[in-house]
C-alpha cells in the first residue's frame, strides 16, 4: 500500500530524514520507535504534506500513486490520516460540523454524494460508541478547552469517522492514562481491517501490548536502523535507546 524509498527531507534547511525506506502492506500495523528528535514526527508531517517540510530526494507511493505530488487535502482524500502529536484548538468551529465538512469533502473527491443528515448522525453515534468518545465532547468546539487526553481521543474519533486507508498515529499514547490508553487501543483494534494499515509512532512498549504490531522499526538519525517484530520493542524497552545509538554509531564508524 505504502512504499517509501530513500526519503530525504529537511526543515528550515536542516536535513532530518536521511534515506528512509519503508514498505507497508494493507492489513499491517507498523510501529515506529526511536529517541526524541530522531525524525518520527517529521515522517508523519512529510507523508501528510505539511508545507514547511521539504522533500529533497526519494519517493513515496500510495497504491502506486505519487503521494508527494498531491496537496495535503488531496492526500487526506486519498486516505492518509495523521493523528497529531499536538492537535490544535479551533475556537468556535463545532466538532460535528467540522467532521461533516471533512467527510463530505472526502466523499465528493470519490464522486459520492454528501451523507444525509440522518445517516451522518447515525454514523456519529455508532463511531462514538466504538471509540468510547463522549457525546458532549463531539458537540463542543473543535478541541477547544479539551484536556490533552481528550484531544488525543478526539483524533481517534475522527479516524473512526473518516476511515482512512493509512493512519499514522503520532504518539497518540503520550498523555493518556492507562484506562484511556486501553480504550484508544481497543478503538484502533476494532478499526483494523485487511484493507487498511497503521503506522504507530510511540516511545513506549506499553502501547504495543494493546495494539500488537506486525513490524517494529527503530528510527534513528533520520533512517530506519533496525526492523523486526514485536520482540524488538521488548528488547528496546530492556536495553534502552543508548544500545541502538551505540551499535549504530559504531557501524557508521566502520
Amino acid at each position, binding site marked *: 500500500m505504502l512504499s517509501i524509498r530513500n526519503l530525504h527531507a529537511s526543515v528550515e534547511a536542516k536535513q532530518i530524514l536521511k534515506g528512509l525506506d519503508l514498505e507497508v502492506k494493507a492489513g499491517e500495523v507498523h510501529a515506529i520507535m526511536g529517541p526524541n528528535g530522531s525524525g518520527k514526527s517529521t515522517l508523519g508531517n512529510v507523508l*501528510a504534506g505539511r508545507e514547511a517540510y521539504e522533500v529533497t530526494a526519494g519517493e513515496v507511493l500510495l497504491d502506486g500513486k505519487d503521494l508527494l505530488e498531491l496537496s495535503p487535502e488531496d492526500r487526506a482524500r486519498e486516505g492518509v490520516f495523521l493523528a497529531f502529536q499536538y492537535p490544535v484548538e479551533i475556537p*468556535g468551529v*463545532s466538532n460535528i460540523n467540522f467532521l461533516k465538512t471533512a467527510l463530505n469533502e472526502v466523499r465528493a473527491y470519490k464522486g459520492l454524494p454528501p451523507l444525509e443528515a440522518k445517516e451522518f448522525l447515525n454514523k456519529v453515534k455508532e463511531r462514538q460508541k466504538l471509540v468510547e468518545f463522549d457525546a458532549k465532547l463531539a458537540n463542543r468546539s473543535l478541541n477547544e478547552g479539551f484536556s490533552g487526553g481528550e484531544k488525543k481521543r478526539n483524533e481517534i474519533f475522527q479516524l473512526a469517522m*473518516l476511515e482512512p486507508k493509512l493512519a499514522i498515529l503520532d504518539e497518540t499514547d503520550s498523555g493518556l492514562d492507562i484506562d484511556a490508553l486501553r480504550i484508544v487501543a481497543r478503538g484502533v483494534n476494532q478499526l483494523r481491517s485487511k484493507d487498511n494499515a497503521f503506522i504507530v509512532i510511540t516511545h513506549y512498549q506499553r502501547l504495543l501490548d494493546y495494539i500488537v504490531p506486525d513490524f517494529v522499526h527503530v528510527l534513528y538519525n533520520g533512517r530506519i536502523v533496525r526492523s523486526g517484530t514485536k520482540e524488538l520493542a521488548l528488547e528496546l524497552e530492556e536495553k534502552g535507546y543508548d544500545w541502538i545509538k551505540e551499535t549504530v554509531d559504531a557501524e557508521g564508524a566502520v
Partner: protein
Amino acid sequence: MSTKDDELLKELALEEYKYGFTTDIEMDIAPKGLSEDTVRLISAKKNEPEWLLEWRLKALRHFQQMQMPTWQNFEHPDVDFQDISYYAAPKTKPKLDSMDEVDPELLSTFAKLGIPLDEQKILAGVVAVDAVFDSVSVKTTFREKLKEQGVIFCSFGEAVQEHPELVKQYLGSVVPQTDNIYAALNSAVFSDGSFVYIPKGVRCPMELSTYFRINAENTGQFERTLIIADEEAYVSYLEGCTAPMRDENQLHAAVVELIALKDAEIKYSTVQNWYPGDKDGKGGIYNFVTKRGMCKGDNSKISWTQVETGSAITWKYPGVILKGDHSVGEFYSVALTRNKQLADTGTKMIHLGKNTRSKIVSKGISAGLSHNSYRGLVKIGPGAENSRNFTQCDSLLIGDRCGAHTFPYIESRNKTAKLEHEATTSKIGEDQLFYLTQRGIDPEKAVGLIVNGYAKEVLNQLPMEFAVEAQKLLAISLEGSVG
C-alpha cells in the same frame, strides 16, 4: 508561515464583489450640488409639511458651519459635497399597492440580490421587507398583516404623511442634527428610509427587514430610519445593503434612531455588504453612518448586531444611551476588511440610569492591506449607580500586511460602576489550516470555517435565516482562487 499558505491567504484576500451589477431604470435625478435650493427641492418632491422643511434647513445651516473630524484612524478622503446628487428615484412612481406595479427591472435587481420581495417567498411570513432603492422606498410587504397588530412599518416618507405626530416627536431626539457633520448632512437632505412603530405591549409577529441598494451614479444615499418600541413592545429589525461596482466613491451617510420605552426591547441587526472597491482600492462606498438607540424607559433593552464586510471606508459607532434604570445595551460586531478597505467602528455606551448594564463584543478580521480599528467609548454618568460594562475586543489577522487597532475609551464618574475589558489579537495559524486540510477540507473552506468559528458569538445573535446568510458572506468575502 510557509510561502504557499502566504500565497493562499493573499489570494483569499482578493475575491471579487458579487453584487456589482447596475440596473437600467429610468431615474429622476436631482442636479449635483448642495444648497438651500437642493433641500427645498427634496422637501417639495416629497410633499413635506413646512415644519420638516424648516428642520432640514436648520440642519443645513449647521452642516455649513461644521468642520471635518480629525480623530479617526485613517486619512479622511476629500468628499466634494457639491459633486454629489442628493436625490435619485426610479421614474415610475414607486408607491405601489401591489407587486404587479413594480418595475420588472427593479424586481429582477432584487431577485439578483436574493431579496425576497415576492410575497409568497418571504420565508413563509416571518419577515416583512422594505426595500430602499437609491433614495426611495420601493415596497413594503406584509403591511396589512402588521396593521392588524397596530404595527406601523412603512417608508419614512409615508410616515411623514400619515403619522406626522410620531415623526415630529422623535425625529432627531436621539441623534441631534449637530451630532456630527454627516448627521447634519443627513438631516438636511435625507431622502427616504424606514419607519417602525410598535404599540404598547405588542411583540412584533415577524422580523422586519430593509434592504438598501445604491444604484445611480454620483448619488449619495442618505436614508433615515426611526424605530420606536412603545412600552413592553418587542421588535427585531434587520437591514442589508449592497451597491454596484463603480470607479468613483459613493457616499452613504445614514442616520438610524431607536427609541425603547419602558420594558421595551429592540434588536437591530445589520449585514452590510456595500461595494468595497477593487483590490487597488479604487471605488467603493464611504459608509459614514450614525446609529444610536435610546433606552428611554426603565428595564428597556437595545442590542445592535452588525456584520460588516463591505465599503471602502466604514465609519460607524452604533451606540446606546442607557437612560432608564436597569436598562441594557448590547453591541455585537464582526468587521471584515481586506484589500485596501478601512474600517473604524465600535460603539458608545452611555450609562445614565441606575443599575444599567452594557456588553460589547467586537470581532475584527483583517486581511490583505486593510486596516481594522475598534473604537469604543463607555461613559458612566454620575447618577449611574452600580452600572456594569463588559467589553471583549478581539482581532484576527490574515497575512502580515494588514493592521488591527483598538481604541477603548472609558470615562467613569461613578465609583460604584464596574468595568471589565478583555482584548486579544490572533493570527490564523498555519497549524490550524494544516489540521483542517489534513482532514480533506479545501484550504478556502478551512479559512471560512476558522473565521466563522471566530465570529460565532456575534453570528449567534442574528436571526437564524440571516445568520446563515452572514456566514456565507464571511466565507465568500475571503474566497479566492487557490493556485
